[in-house]
Structure formats: structure tokens, C-alpha cells
């Protein structure tokens, strides 16, 4: 069994406010193997983006990491100094932001924004070399190299997203985090881009953490899937196994809410109610108010993760004894 490339252990993130801290991530643990594609699913506000940004430690104030470890290639990212973090960022872990289209500097050309990454990490001996490599990267994501001198506003949304991917690939990282990479794009472009990423991943061999609320897409493109609910990890399993035998009531509800990959006349249904406020979460299992299978203990105690198979675990009282 290969060593995981990323090992998140009991990670806790709080948002500090005048009225007290709000826990956005509560003792979350997740492993990623080299070259693996792990999808992270859940409703808005469940903590998936928070975890992604916490790994790179780019969460803006008022966020504070209040516990746990993030082991990457053996080093705890939470213990690194600012210069060490700066070297590690992008060289080993890169990220494609949600709507990367807005994550591009309006006053610099896209070529410049790829090239300055290369120059900042000493990955190009001269500016012409940086520009040449930037052109190569653009072509790798399917953009013609003569777009090197274009400004972001001159490109379509889909192209800007591809630029975001090119930037992420620039330094050949071992892990790329995709934070809702296609939410703001239309369906056709979305599929193209995801297939593009899949092709690149197979060719270059980087690991991927794929964050999205679209479960269908995630099941198509991931090896394993982790499901988040209200700042906690509730289930994690290989994609196929999750689709066929999800064990957590929330995951089952989610699957029923998304169109099946294979079509067919499956009736869609949504989970009644809405996610709880993180400032004042329900006692015991956080999902119990919306769960139709809740039993007494669900209202009292938080369930721990129960191992259900070699790579399948879920946090539900119904699975124990």
C-alpha cells in the first residue's frame, strides 16, 4: 500500500466573530494516494472549500486553524513557516479556484500570469524561456498559443477557466485541488474541461482533489468520493461502491437527488429541510433532524467513523451493532 501523499488528520477550522467562533470544519480526516482522484461532495457551506483552502493555508480572516494536522509528503503544512509555505505552494500543491474566471488579474495578460508563476519559483532561466513554457501550457489545455498576449476580459469564461488550469499545471505539482472548477460554466463546456483534466491527469500523474456539489459529475470522474455534511465527514468510499451501496442516510438522500449516470426513469427526490447553522449545530448527529431513520442515540451522541470495507467508512449510529 503506497504512502498517502496527503493526510488530513482531525482538522479543525474556526471563523472568529464578535459573537464567538463558528466551527466550519470539525475534526475532519481524509487521505489521498499519489495519482488518485478523490471527489469531495456536499451542500454549500458544508466545509469542502474551507478544507481545500485550509490545506494551502490561504483562508482569509477571520478564519483560524484550531487543531489537527495536514501531512503532505511527510511534512505537517500547519507547522511550516511563511517562506517554506510559499515554496511549497504551487510547486507541490496547486489549486484551481471556483470561477477561475474571476481569479485572473484584469490588468495583466494571461501569458504574464502564467509566466510570473514560473519565474517566482525559478522554473524558467529567462523571461523568454518563461514565455515559451507558458505558451506550451496554454496549448496543453487547448488554447492556441497566440492568446498569450490576451487580457482576461478578451477570453470567454471557459477559456479563462482553462487558463486557471494551465496556471495550476505550471510547476508540475503532485496534487491539484479543483474547487468547483465548472460551476459557472455551461454543461457542454463543463464536460469538455473535465475530460481535459482527466486526460492531463492520466498523462502527468498528479493527484486530484475534486470539490463539487454535482454528485453525478463527481462519480464519473473520481476514484473515491468523500461526503461532507455540516463541517463533518460523513462517508468516504470508492466511487462505484458509493453509487451502489452508500450507507449513510445523507449520502443515500444525495444520490436520490441527482440524475443517474445511466439515465432511466429514476424518480428524483430532495432531502427535506436544510443544513443546520454551524453556529448552533444540533446535538448528537448533525443530520438527525432531516433523517428518516433516526433513532434515540442519534439525538444524544455524535457518531464516529465506522469502517465498512477496506476503503469505505461512514459515520452513522445505524452501522454499529
Amino acid at each position, binding site marked *: 500500500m503506497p504512502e498517502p501523499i496527503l493526510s488530513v488528520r482531525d482538522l479543525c477550522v474556526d471563523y472568529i466573530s*464578535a459573537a464567538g467562533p463558528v466551527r466550519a470544519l470539525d475534526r475532519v480526516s481524509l487521505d489521498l494516494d499519489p495519482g488518485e482522484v478523490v471527489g469531495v461532495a456536499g451542500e454549500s457551506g458544508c466545509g469542502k472549500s474551507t478544507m481545500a*483552502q485550509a490545506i494551502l493555508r*490561504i483562508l*482569509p*480572516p*477571520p*478564519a*483560524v486553524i*484550531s487543531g489537527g494536522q495536514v501531512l503532505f509528503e511527510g511534512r505537517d503544512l500547519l507547522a511550516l513557516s511563511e517562506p517554506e509555505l510559499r515554496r511549497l505552494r504551487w510547486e507541490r500543491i496547486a489549486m484551481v479556484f471556483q470561477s477561475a474566471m474571476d481569479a485572473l488579474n484584469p490588468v495583466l495578460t494571461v501569458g504574464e500570469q502564467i509566466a510570473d508563476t514560473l519565474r517566482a519559483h525559478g522554473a524558467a532561466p529567462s523571461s523568454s524561456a518563461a514565455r515559451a513554457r507558458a505558451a506550451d501550457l496554454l496549448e496543453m489545455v487547448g488554447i492556441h498559443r497566440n492568446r498569450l498576449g490576451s487580457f482576461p476580459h478578451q477570453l470567454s469564461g471557459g477559456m479563462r477557466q482553462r487558463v486557471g488550469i494551465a496556471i495550476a499545471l505550471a510547476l508540475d505539482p503532485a496534487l491539484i485541488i479543483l474547487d468547483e472548477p465548472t460551476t459557472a460554466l455551461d454543461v457542454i463546456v463543463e464536460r469538455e474541461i473535465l475530460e481535459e483534466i482527466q486526460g492531463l491527469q492520466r498523462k502527468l500523474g498528479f493527484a486530484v482533489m475534486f470539490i463539487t456539489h454535482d454528485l453525478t459529475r463527481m462519480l464519473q470522474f473520481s476514484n473515491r468520493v468523500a461526503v461532507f455534511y455540516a463541517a463533518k465527514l460523513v462517508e468516504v468510499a470508492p466511487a462505484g461502491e458509493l453509487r451502489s451501496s452508500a450507507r449513510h442516510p445523507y449520502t443515500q438522500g444525495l444520490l436520490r437527488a441527482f440524475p443517474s449516470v445511466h439515465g432511466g426513469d429514476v424518480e428524483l427526490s430532495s432531502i427535506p429541510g436544510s443544513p443546520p447553522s454551524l453556529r448552533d449545530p444540533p446535538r448528537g448527529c448533525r443530520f438527525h433532524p432531516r433523517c428518516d431513520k433516526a433513532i434515540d442515540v442519534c439525538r444524544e451522541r455524535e457518531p464516529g467513523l465506522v469502517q465498512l470495507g477496506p476503503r469505505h467508512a461512514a459515520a452513522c449510529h445505524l452501522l454499529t451493532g
Partner: protein
Amino acid sequence: MSAPSGGRSTGARAWLEAIRRDRRATVGALLLLFFALVAAAGPLLVGDPTALVAVPLQPPSAAHWLGTTGQGQDVLAQTVVGTRVSLLIGFAVGLVVVLVGSLVGVAAGYFGGRVDGLLSLLFNVFLVIPGLPLAIVMAAYLPSGPLTVAGVLVFTGWAWNARVVRGQTLALRRRDFVAASVVSGESSLRIITREILPNMTSLLVAQVIGSSVYAIGALVGLEFLGLGDVSAVTWGTNLYWATNDSALLTGAWWTYVPTGLCVALVGFGLVMLNSGFDEITNPRLQMERAWRAHLQAAGQPASRSTPVVAGHA
């Protein structure tokens, strides 16, 4: 920003809270309170500012705390008496500027289309024409007096407020609760007075404060040039007479320094009050404050990257 319709997030109590909590606002409020007292009660305590009481151009002494002017009048009396008129006119102009500007701004922002185009053009033209030269020329033509000066200042100063209010109106108009009212057929006047304006209170208060700062400064400037009623006792005319009596060349600093200080302290007080209010209307600034306090308590410096503070909350 604020809650829709009936839920005004900034009532009078919130203002007072802000003054108490934010140091800058407290300083500002105290300064203004001081000058308000001087304006209200001061003239009763000092003598007649126009009386010739002593030898001209005397430096400050026990008899005359701020010395005497080039004509032998008591500088302290002049400064104190001048406070009342200067503050009154200044605030009045500030208020009227906001009234006029808001009227135009709301109309432009709410009705949009050609009305907006026309009104925007109007205030943009006013914004770009330099105000003080125009004010000087206008005041020179009109009969001198406080009404002229006030009128001229309103004429040259309303445009900025119109622009700001228009922007805010546009933003509010797009919000759901306004759209709902429009769809349900409420009259424009009702929507403007019941939904849009109440949600702008913090902005309007800030604008009144800002406009008053401008007004007091411009007022003093015009009077300094001799365009006000030079026989009246105001801060500006005090400075006019000081330069007329060659205060600069004779080194009689006490004839103009106190007035300048008063103008500056009032302006500064108003600006501080405004920045204090800014804290309560800008939730992001508040957020950061709690975060920094938390880090400080844990003995950790605020860093660029997300800080790690061990232990549970």
C-alpha cells in the same frame, strides 16, 4: 448591508453604541460637543466682540487670553461669537446639500432611463466645473450676506452627494424586496420613501457629516476673500480682517491661529465621527477586529497565511 423595510439595522441606539465603542468616534463626538457648547453658551460669557477694548495687536495676556486684533478687539470674544454663526451656516448648508443631492440622486437611480441620463449628465457637469472659482464669481455678483454665501455653496456642492446617492439607489433598486414592491404595484413615491430611503440612513448621515465639513471649509474660504458680510463676526471674516490688518507681516499670529484651529478641530471631529460610524456599517471591519483579538490572546502575530492556533475554542 441593512435589513429590508421595517428592519433598520442602525437605529439611534446603534449610533450611540458606535460612539462609545470606537475611539475615533468618541473623540469626534467630544470635539463636536465642545464646540456646540461654545456656540450655544459662549457668546453669553464673553464680551462684545466688536468693542474696541485695548491696544491693537497685543499678544495673548491675562487680560485678553488670545490677544487683540489689528483694530483693538478681543480675539477670544471674536472667535467664540464667530463659532455660532459659522457652525450654523455650515451645518445648514451641509443639510441642504444632502437634501438637494439626494432628491436628484434618488430620482436618477430609481427611474433610470432618460431621466437618469439627463440627471447624471447634470450632476457630472457640476462635478467637473471647479467649485470655488465659480462660487467666488457668483458671490461677487450677488449682494453680500450669509444667504448668498449659503446659496452659492449649495449650488456648487450638491453634485457629489447626488452621485453617491444615485449609486446607492441603483444598488438597492436591484434588491429583491424592492423588486417585489414594484411588481405588487406600489407607487414609486411609497417605494422610495418606505423601502429605499430608510435603507440609506447610514449613508445619508455620513453624507451630511461630510458635506458639513466641506461647507464649513468653503464658507471660511469665501469669507476670507471678503465675499461674506464683512461686518458680521464669523470665523471667515475674522481671518479676512486678520490679513487685512497685515497680521502676517507684523507677526501677530494670535489673530489667525485660533480661528484656523477651530475650523480644523471641528472638521477633524466630524471626519472622526464618520470613520467611527464606518465601522458599524462595514461588517467586514468588525469581523477582522474579533479575529485579531483572538490571535493576540493566543500570542500569535497576524500572518499572511491562515494562522494555526492550537487547542479547541
